[in-house]
């Protein structure tokens, strides 16, 4: 069978796909920001001396790391409103699910970074009278940060791919726009292939950038 390619539906609707890509990036950026904040809180919670704090933080981290993101998307969109009485827009539900889910992964990166700082640094900070918050902000995090950058980038990269699941909640990101176009134009092959190429282009450039940063960091720490 000879397939006749027809990319006209793609070019005619390229604006729609670009709009989807912009929404993908919007959701990614928002969730990475919120996820980092949640991750830092969870990491500090897990390291807290009080068990009433560390056990719930650990439970949240382990639960979200070991369950599929798609379940969380559905839980936040269809389940949570029943509990709270507040219904979320597809964007809000997707952003909430993604932020908490990747927050759990970010938390482990933060925790790994924090405990990798030499104990003497903690003791010295305390000796000159710093409080825990000051110690964390001025001494520990700046030192741990460099080590955390590569895994944080890695997780953020995974997050961008996971945003595609927001299509199942009808949020108009790239995959959702493609699904709508595919049913309108009957050209699934051309449209989905174009979408794959669009994702690949963005993500490949990002991964090249990540490699460059990792290289720089490795050189810096070798010095």
């Amino acid at each position, binding site marked *: 069978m000879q*397939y006749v390619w027809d990319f006209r539906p793609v070019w005619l609707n390229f604006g729609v796909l670009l709009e989807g890509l912009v929404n993908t990036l919007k959701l990614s950026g928002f969730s990475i920001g919120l996820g980092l904040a949640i991750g830092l809180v969870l990491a500090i919670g897990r390291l807290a001396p009080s068990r009433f704090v560390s056990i719930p933080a650990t439970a949240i981290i382990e639960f979200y*790391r070991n*369950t599929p993101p*798609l379940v969380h998307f*559905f839980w936040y969109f269809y389940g949570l409103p029943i509990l709270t009485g507040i219904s979320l827009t597809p964007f809000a539900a997707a952003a909430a699910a993604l932020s908490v889910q990747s927050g759990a992964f970010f938390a482990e990166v933060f925790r790994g970074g924090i405990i990798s700082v030499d104990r003497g640094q903690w003791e010295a900070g305390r000796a000159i009278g710093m409080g825990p918050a000051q110690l964390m902000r001025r001494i520990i995090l700046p030192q741990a940060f460099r080590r955390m950058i590569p895994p944080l980038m890695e997780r953020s990269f995974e997050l961008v791919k996971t945003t595609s699941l927001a299509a199942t909640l009808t949020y108009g990101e790239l995959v959702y726009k493609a699904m709508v176009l595919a049913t309108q134009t009957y050209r699934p092959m051309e449209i989905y292939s174009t979408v*794959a190429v669009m994702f*690949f282009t963005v993500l490949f450039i990002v991964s090249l950038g990540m490699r460059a940063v990792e290289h720089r960091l490795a050189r810096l720490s070798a010095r």
Partner: protein
Amino acid sequence: MIAMNYSFQFGEILANTDLLLRGLKLTILLFAIAFSGALLCGLFISLARASARRVPNLIATTYIEIFRNTPVLVQLIWFYYALPALSGWQPSAFTAAALGLFLNTSAYCAEIWRAGLQSLPAGQWEGGRAIGMSEWQLLRRVAVPQAFSRMLPAFTNRGVELAKMTSIASTITVQELMYEAKMLSTQTFLPLETFTVVAVIYFVLIYPGTLAAYALERRLNSKGA
């Protein structure tokens, strides 16, 4: 208004466990097919990637980059909705999902194999060649047995990722656990309970994998390998 006095109705969900169990069976089948296939296929891709010859190297590298730099949802949709238009072959939803997950996981496994095989000291390869082993013998008798234990934590983590990814098959109508959950939630009008129960099922299924990876890593570190 916050409806904190919401009374959970887990009874109705638990009465439908047979439905969820049927879905679970398909989830496990998807996982088993994709993972066993990917472990083996990943080795061959990594060999092609490590090859000094340009063509196999280029093909393997392209393959790995494509699958790692696109969302798995797009891959599954592509195999199910796009490929039939081109090839005239309409795979079933299950076949498309198994194929997509298998090819995706193969790309990641190939990178694990590559790192594992590279970690062997060069002397091992030279020693094997010196006593007249063929490349295939060398791989099977010398390289893989030594490298495998070092790669085990990474493979286990990949398995965990794959187990989570199987839920995406529901979007192309594979009737696995997540799909049955969606059905159940619309039938019972109890999405909160349904997705909570299903999240717990996935957790019980997947968490032992993560614990195993931790334990394997610890053992490896204490051996100083």
